[in-house]
Structure formats: structure tokens, C-alpha cells
């Protein structure tokens, strides 16, 4: 990626198009932190790219180009989003974000021989052989479960695990702290894992197909 800025400054259209194609899916998702509709998200992303190109000659390289693009998106998203009055609070954690991510009843209680350790009935169920990949059907179910997560957990998990953003990039584009990002990621992943376990237990999905 170090080579990208010189290419863009030199007017390499193919490099620009590749970058737009590669980075825009994550940008579209991230824009949803600020605006309510897919159409608005597209506008935010388009404005972002225009602002990025306009600012390229002045880019000082204090961050990576990619982090900078995400920072520009956050600015534009926030400006647009003010009008759309987002109701989901982002900066702080709330009641959804505290407490254990695994049901306490799955561990031996205080006073038992091994308090705090998995009980024999509570221990994680086997998901199936490690070398099996998820079937297309199981992936569809996983996608549906992801869509059901609380909004902020969903967005952090999507940006990190579906789109592969780094934690720094997520914090920059969503304007949240590292700690909040970690909490949301932790809770989102734990919730997804739990849903998969429930479905495996119920025989709805198997990892051995």
C-alpha cells in the first residue's frame, strides 16, 4: 500500500478504481453508523472519495492512506448524520454491554468443588470436526444471526471479521475508543458463537456436511 499514493498522485486510474472497489464495501458498512439508509450510505461514500481525491496532494502521510480515508468518511458521515438524527448512542457503553457473555449457570457455583469451572452439562458442545468448513447453508444462517446482533456489536463484528479492518481502523471510522471497540467485538463474537451452539444442539446446522 506504500506504493498506492504515488500511483494516485500520478493519475493512475486503474489503481484508483481498484482501490475504490476494494475499500468501498467496508466504507458502505461503516457509513451506517452515521446514516440510516443504504442510499445515504452510498452518498457518504461517494462524497468521501471525492474529498479524498481533492485532498490527495495535501495528504501529509501522518497516518496510512487507508486510515485517513476512514477518518474522512467519519467526518462526512457525522455531518450528514446529524440531519438524520441517529438514535443509537455510540460513544458510551450501555446495559447491553456489561455482564458476562456466557450464562453463569454453565459454571459450577460457589461452594462446589470447582467453582467457576465449566460444569459437565454446561461445557461447550462439540461443533464437529475442525477441518470441516461451514456449508453454504450454515453460512446463510450465520449471516442471519449476525444481522440480529445489537446494532453496535453487529457493526464492529462486521467491520473486523467480515471486512478485515484493523482495530485502529474501526476506532477511526466509528469514532469509538479502543476499549469500547474491544467490548463490542467480544460481546458480538460471543453472542454469535452462542447462537451457533444453540443451532448445532438443535440439529439445525451441522459442521460436518
Amino acid at each position, binding site marked *: 500500500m506504500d506504493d498506492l499514493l504515488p500511483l494516485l498522485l500520478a493519475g493512475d486510474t486503474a489503481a484508483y478504481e481498484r482501490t475504490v472497489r476494494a475499500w468501498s464495501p*467496508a466504507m458502505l458498512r461503516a457509513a451506517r453508523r452515521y446514516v440510516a439508509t443504504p442510499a445515504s450510505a452510498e452518498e457518504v461514500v461517494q462524497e468521501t472519495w471525492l474529498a479524498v481525491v481533492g485532498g490527495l496532494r495535501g495528504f501529509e502521510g501522518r497516518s496510512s492512506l487507508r486510515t485517513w480515508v476512514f477518518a474522512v468518511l467519519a467526518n462526512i458521515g457525522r455531518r450528514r448524520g446529524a440531519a438524520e438524527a441517529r438514535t443509537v448512542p455510540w460513544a458510551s457503553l450501555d446495559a447491553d454491554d456489561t455482564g458476562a457473555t456466557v450464562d453463569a449457570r454453565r459454571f459450577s457455583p460457589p461452594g462446589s468443588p470447582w467453582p467457576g469451572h465449566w460444569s459437565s452439562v454446561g461445557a461447550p458442545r462439540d461443533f464437529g470436526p475442525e477441518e470441516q468448513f461451514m456449508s453454504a447453508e450454515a453460512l446463510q444462517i450465520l449471516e442471519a444471526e449476525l444481522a440480529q446482533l445489537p446494532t453496535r456489536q453487529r457493526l464492529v463484528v462486521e467491520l473486523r471479521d467480515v471486512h478485515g479492518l484493523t482495530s485502529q481502523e474501526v476506532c477511526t471510522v466509528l469514532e469509538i475508543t479502543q476499549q469500547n471497540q474491544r467490548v463490542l467485538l467480544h460481546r458480538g463474537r460471543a453472542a454469535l458463537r452462542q447462537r451457533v451452539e444453540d443451532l448445532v444442539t438443535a440439529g439445525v446446522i451441522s459442521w460436518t456436511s
Partner: protein
Amino acid sequence: MDELTCQQVVELITELDEGTLAIEVAEAVQAHLDDCPDCVRYFAQIRRVSQSLRALPVESLPVAIQDALTEAFRAWSTKPSNH
């Protein structure tokens, strides 16, 4: 530090993978995992779910917008530089 219970360890997996645990806590987590196949399984499941998400389809910017951006880029790149 004191040995960790499973109930404590399952809340530490993300920080472990992010590399943000204090060294003695990371070591305590690892010591617990060395002896606890249930927690090893739990950790493996969390990682497996998050890795599986990589395969999900993503939405792209509509082609019409991509084309408009390309045109704007071409126009910008042919303007004389101010620097």
C-alpha cells in the same frame, strides 16, 4: 497471580487475541488453557465463528457511482498541480 477460573477466562479471549492483556494475565490465561480442554474448545469455537465470517458476501458501491468517481478522478488528475 491467582489461577483463573473458566468463568473468568472466557471473558478474556478477545483481549488475549487483541494483545491487550497485561503479561501476567496473558500468562495466567495460557496456564489455564494448558489444563482445560473445555476452554480450549470454547476459544477455538469463537475463533472459528469469527473466521467463518470472512466468507460472507459484501455489498459493493453501485457501478454508476464507481464510474462517476472514475470520471472525477480523471478530471482531477489532468488539472495542473498546485504544489
